[in-house]
């Protein structure tokens, strides 16, 4: 048999209800039950083998790199849990058929339920740590869906969220623990891990593992102090409570304790933590249960208490305690599921779960009452019922342990107190609901439920009796198999007899019963005592906690991030300063070995003017036009510097870009305030900025100096050597631009093109205030297009075009090229715009500029693609020299087509940017006289 089918069938089963819910409730339930039932049959089939001590396994590779494989194994423990999950699951399916109303989406409900079932099966069957975690988290997710099933109810939403948050957090801790285990052991295979207990216990990370691991287990099984989510998960429909919060999900936590008992237990750390937490949970749960008026609330706290009990058993340092724990897992699942279902029936048939309203139901539903009373008696630990047996074992083990050293006597004492409390709340459950006078203001007259709604309860109660009377026959083998899987070694002797004679445990039981009865009899005082304390609603507290966290996070976040660009830029600059300044501190001497060039007066003066221009720009930055004029000096001198330092192409480019930039700034300045308010920044801010600016300047200056004074060995010799022969041009810079690194240039003009498009986008639909006067309040001059300017501009246009043709054509061999030529043409055209206005130009230059951009880009790209025809990579150039009579020798090169593309793109983009901005301003200008 393939073990994979056991979880796989229910997984496929999640689809069944979604597909079948239209066929009616009974059909849906029946069809839904089908695949889990098959799965159960498979499990049952495997029983003989497991009882014989075999562990069935199945494995497939999944993500072995992280240690995650699809691996299942079925040993005694897994068998026990599989039976519980599938058995009780099927009963819950049947029960829910009657519980859910017509308003509830049955398909969805069953689907979630089966998904949960799959997840649980996955957890218990996993033979891989990471796969175990995988299913573990799936239980959290599917239980979230189930708890929040009535999502319109606030309680359901909040309860589900809380459960998910707590169990999710635990899941993360568990993941950490499992990875640590896997890394320590060197394998994520559970079998291997189980055999490596010593390695783990001796590892330095063992305490970390324990803490993380227990966080996972305790949150899931609602152990103190993480218990508070469980009662609020009762907002779920009762079948969910019966399933998740009695038999399965909360048991996943104790399953984990059982599963890893062989490797993680057996240290003081484990025993102390686990037993103390278990004991605290046991007492707190039992005590609180007593005061709950809500039937499900009582059961919820009782569940917490019993989970504490099981945990306590795993925390006692005797082997029999672990066996008792396994036994109680079974017993608790059986009686608690039946109690939840009974509570659901009561709720369903009477319309209330409040024990202050519910009284004397015995008269109305004697049969259900009987069932509930038997189950409750089991919960209280009454002899001849299953609950009694495991509780008796607990009492026995508390007497044999020495977990807390000299304080170990506390444990039996407190366990007895817990037993008394259990008796008390069980009594309350029975007396308060079924007797204690007449019902008060019930929404409906209670009556017995439909026949088949009772069946699951009947079955479970029969099981309680069966186990209670003939334990060995009922669960002996199962318990043996499960317990040996937990201990991972031969079992010590133990007996499941009903009667062990008069002994300590029995005395404790009697004490518990007597104490419980007394407690219940005196409940009025107790309730009055408890009434003094304000009720803490965990849900509200939890929400408050979350809100506190988010609020604090918001405070810290706003402190960190004040949404100010000034701070962002400051941080960017400061950060750059630090990370660049740091290595610079290791620079022994800034000056390198390259001989410096001599200085001359002209250069000194130019540098002085450059510095003056820079400072003036900064000083006058609040007088914007003035700053613009000042920065022009800087641009001009930079251009001259390029020319001086043997970069004529750069000088030309810088000059033309400079003018285009000035025009751009002027266009923009029309709409911006002419001046920045003087109180722009506080003096402190100015000082801070000045300091950091100077530091950055110093660092960059030093870097620049260090760079300049060091010798350079670069790849450039290749370009100089191959420019003429390989690229067909003597202007190496241009050949680099259109050939060696033409790809950069293609990218560069693409940037220009995109900028044009983006600016067009920015301008679309822009509404701006248009000043009717300049900043001094002077109305604008009336002469729109001064005649001389217009006339001279248009006369210069042909000349400018000729010059740009000149610059373009010689670019390959002399300074120049497509980019500069394009800018000259564009500026000459912009000059026409300035001189004549948009309307005049519109008649003459009427096509969308982005076409020009596209054509330019297309030319450049296609000139590059041309080389494909010759089987060469993109942008491989071709050139040759020709000779014509009369005209002489001349060169043709494919790079010129590329450069032509550059030329057109530059014109298109520049016009798109500048002319469109100009156009905008015109269309937005108010009509004379105002409108």
């Amino acid at each position, binding site marked *: 048999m393939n073990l994979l089918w056991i979880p796989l069938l229910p997984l496929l089963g999640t689809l069944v209800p979604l597909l079948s819910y239209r066929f009616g409730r009974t059909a849906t339930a029946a069809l839904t039950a089908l695949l889990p039932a098959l799965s159960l049959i498979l499990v049952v089939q495997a029983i003989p083998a497991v009882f014989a001590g075999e562990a069935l396994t199945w494995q497939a590779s999944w*993500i072995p790199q*992280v240690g*995650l494989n699809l691996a299942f194994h079925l040993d005694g423990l897994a068998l026990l849990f599989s039976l519980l999950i599938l058995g009780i699951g099927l009963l819950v399916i049947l029960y829910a058929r009657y519980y859910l109303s017509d308003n509830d989406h049955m398909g969805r409900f069953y689907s979630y339920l089966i998904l949960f079932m799959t997840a649980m099966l996955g957890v218990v069957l996993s033979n891989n740590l*990471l796969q175990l975690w*995988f*299913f573990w*988290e*799936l239980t959290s997710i599917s239980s979230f869906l189930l708890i929040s099933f009535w*999502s*319109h109810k*606030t309680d359901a*939403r909040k309860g*589900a969220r809380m459960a998910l*948050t707590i169990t*999710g*957090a635990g899941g*993360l801790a568990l993941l950490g623990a499992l*990875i640590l285990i896997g*890394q320590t052991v060197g394998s994520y295979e559970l079998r291997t891990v189980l055999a490596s207990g010593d390695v783990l216990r001796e590892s330095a*990370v063992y305490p970390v593992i324990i803490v993380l691991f227990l966080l996972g287990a305790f949150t899931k099984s609602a152990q103190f102090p993480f218990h508070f989510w469980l009662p609020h998960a009762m907002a779920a429909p009762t079948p969910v409570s019966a399933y998740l919060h009695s038999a399965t999900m909360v048991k996943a936590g104790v399953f984990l304790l059982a599963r890893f008992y062989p490797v993680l237990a057996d240290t003081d750390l484990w025993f102390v933590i686990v037993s103390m937490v278990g004991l605290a949970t046991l007492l707190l749960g039992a005590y609180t249960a007593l005061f709950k008026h809500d039937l499900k609330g009582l059961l919820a706290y009782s569940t917490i208490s019993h989970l504490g009990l099981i945990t306590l058993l795993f925390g006692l340092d005797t082997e029999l305690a672990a066996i008792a724990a396994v036994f109680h897992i079974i017993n608790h699942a059986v009686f608690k599921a039946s109690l939840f279902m009974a509570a659901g029936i009561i709720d369903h048939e009477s319309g209330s779960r409040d024990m202050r309203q519910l009284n004397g139901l015995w008269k109305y539903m004697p049969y259900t009452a009987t069932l509930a009373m038997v189950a409750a008696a089991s919960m209280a630990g009454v002899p001849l019922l299953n609950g009694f047996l495991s509780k008796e074992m607990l009492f026995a083990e508390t007497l044999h342990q020495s977990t807390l050293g000299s304080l170990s006597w506390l444990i039996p004492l407190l366990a007895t107190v817990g037993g008394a409390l259990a008796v008390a709340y069980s009594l309350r459950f029975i007396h308060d609901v079924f007797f204690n006078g007449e019902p008060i203001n019930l929404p409906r007259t209670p009556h017995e439920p439909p026949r088949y709604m009772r069946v699951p309860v009947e079955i479970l109660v029969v099981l309680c009796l069966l186990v209670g009377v003939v334990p060995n026959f009922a669960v002996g083998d199962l318990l043996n198999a499960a317990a040996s899987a937990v201990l991972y070694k031969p079992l010590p002797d133990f007996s499941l007899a009903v009667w062990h004679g008069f002994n300590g445990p029995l005395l404790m039981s009697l004490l518990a019963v007597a104490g419980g009865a007394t407690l219940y009899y005196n409940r009025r005082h107790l309730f009055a005592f408890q009434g003094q304390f304000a009720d803490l609603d965990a849900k509200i507290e939890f929400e408050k906690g979350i809100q506190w966290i*988010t609020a604090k*996070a918001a405070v810290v*976040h706003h402190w*960190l991030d004040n949404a100010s660009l000034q701070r*962002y*830029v400051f*941080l*960017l600059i400061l950060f750059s300063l630090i*990370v*660049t300044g740091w*290595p610079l501190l*290791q620079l022994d001497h800034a000056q390198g070995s390259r001989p410096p060039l001599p200085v001359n007066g002209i250069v000194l003066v130019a540098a002085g003017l450059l510095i003056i221009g820079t400072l003036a720009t900064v000083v006058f930055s609040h007088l914007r036009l003035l700053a613009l004029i000042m920065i022009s000096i800087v641009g001009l001198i930079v251009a001259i510097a390029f020319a001086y330092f043997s970069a004529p192409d750069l000088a030309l480019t810088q000059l033309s870009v400079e003018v285009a930039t000035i025009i751009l700034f002027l266009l923009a300045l029309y709409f911006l305030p002419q001046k920045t308010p003087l109180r722009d920044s506080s003096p402190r801010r100015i000082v801070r900025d000045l300091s950091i600016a100077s530091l950055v300047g110093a660092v*960059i200056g030093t*870097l620049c100096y260090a*760079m300049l004074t*060091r010798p*350079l060995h670069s*790849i450039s010799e290749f370009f100089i050597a191959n420019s003429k022969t390989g690229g067909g041009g003597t202007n190496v810079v241009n050949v680099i631009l259109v*050939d*060696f*690194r033409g*790809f950069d240039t293609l990218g560069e003009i*693409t*940037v220009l093109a*995109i900028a044009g*498009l983006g600016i067009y*986008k920015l301008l679309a639909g822009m509404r701006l205030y248009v000043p009717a006067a300049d900043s001094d309040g002077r109305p604008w001059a009336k002469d729109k297009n001064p005649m001389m300017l217009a006339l001279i501009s248009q006369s210069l246009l042909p000349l400018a075009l000729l010059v740009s043709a000149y610059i373009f054509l010689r670019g390959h061999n002399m300074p120049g090229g497509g980019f500069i030529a394009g800018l000259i043409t564009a500026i000459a055209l912009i000059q026409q715009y300035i001189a004549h206005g948009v309307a005049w130009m519109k008649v003459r230059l009427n096509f*969308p500029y982005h*076409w020009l951009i596209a*054509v330019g880009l*297309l030319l450049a790209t296609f000139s590059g*693609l041309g080389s*494909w025809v010759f*089987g*060469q*990579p*993109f*942008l*491989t*150039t071709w050139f040759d020299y020709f000779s014509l009579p009369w005209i002489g020798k001349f060169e043709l090169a494919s790079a010129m087509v590329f450069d032509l593309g550059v030329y057109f793109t530059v014109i298109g983009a520049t016009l798109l940017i500048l002319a469109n901005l100009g156009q905008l301003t015109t269309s937005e200008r108010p009509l004379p006289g105002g409108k």
Partner: protein
Amino acid sequence: MLQHLIFFPVLLPLLAGIFLLLPPLQGHVQRQRVAVFMVNTLLLMSAVLLFQQSVQHEPQMYMMGNWQAPFGIALVNDKLAAIMLLLSAVLGFAVHLYACAGDDQRGPFFHPLFMFQLMGINGAFLTGDVFNLFVFFEILLIASYSLLIHGGGKHRTQAAVHYVLLNLVGSAFFLFGLGIIYATFGTLNLADMAHKAAQLNSEDIALAKAGGMLLLVVFGLKAALLPLHFWLPRTYAHTSTPVAALFAIMTKVGIYSIWRVHTAVFGEYGGELANIAISWLWPLALATLVAGIIALLASQTLKMLAANLVVVSAGSLLLTIALNTPQATAAGLYYLIHSTLMAAALFLIAGLVQEQRGQAQDRFVRSRPVNQPALLGGLFFIAALALIGMPPLSGFVGKIMLLQAAGHGADAAWIWPPLLISGLAALIMFSRAGTTLFWRVQGVSQSQTVAHPLQITAVILLLLTSPLMVIWGGDLADMTMAAANELHRLPQPLTPAVSAVQEVLK
């Protein structure tokens, strides 16, 4: 034709962008949509082919202009690049589908800009030249500036002002850095740099370090490294939905560049320049993660939540870089793919929620229900699971890989808590977001808006990648490990590359 395959991820969107500006495509919505759809399909196909090539061969080069490296610009298709290209193709494909439901009509030039954006991203992934990387950065930046403002609006403009100005300063630093790099290395080719790093003149070492660190600043700015990440959440949250989803890959370009430059060039074999960024990255990545978690917890809208998750994932990724082992890089790569696609999906879902929730948009407040609660709720749920890192979706594999990559020494002690807490914070926020947005409702939906089939398709397409990444997690893990190994070893010396060119051209 196939010998030029490496160039396709750049060429196709470039050509498409150009033709979209010209008749007969220009001005025709449907034609533009179909055209871009076809180009995206082609991009996907070429990415798949390149991916196959990268698996089967050593890294392949495409030499622009047929100039041999390091003199010409090389496009390099290695496993890392191929994975990133595939990622961008999938993302682009899905996001474009979503945009075609109507977002593309909220301003001019959406389609060409979209293409140019992809061109920039793909170029950055492919280029083997550090200055060319700058150029492609600028292409993707200018396209992102333009896309960011798509649709207009006050918040978008404000976000754009911050994003653009900050990145312009960043670009300036990029150039400072490149200047130093060239001044010391004398070359621009990344592989060549990697070889020269160890042989650098001793008097140039400090300089080269400064240059390398400047590049880290620039890449960190893109990758959302604290303290340079503050711009990100608002920018992403305020831009239009498809653009935000596309931007999910932008931080990854930063991460990728750090890999290319600081893991490969200034990496193990860098002599005195080895691992210059690592000691800085350690605390900063951690701090990024923590700041991301705090911001995550402070999120007030779904888009903001998604944006802050981007920061969290950036922090996690930067941590993998700080770990500086092939295993960590492989983990990071897996996590990168997952987080990109899922964050994008979440942005798209947030957009759908915004559209259907009226005034309340995607704010976490009680409001009228969305028009299609089951559909949107379901999609949200899946995305949330993936992003929290819960099974059965890809996030959990990523999380396991990250945790394992940290080893279990002191590194893990630093990395594990924030990593685990980030998952918890996401869990808290998603459960809060989901229950509020879909369940905490009053009245009936007033919105008649129904999610367009294309929008749904896009979201499902993205979400579908997550289970696939789990099902074929083994193969993917192999692939990321191989890519990481390729990245961490010293690249082939450039001389044999000449023959590689000829091989490509055969």
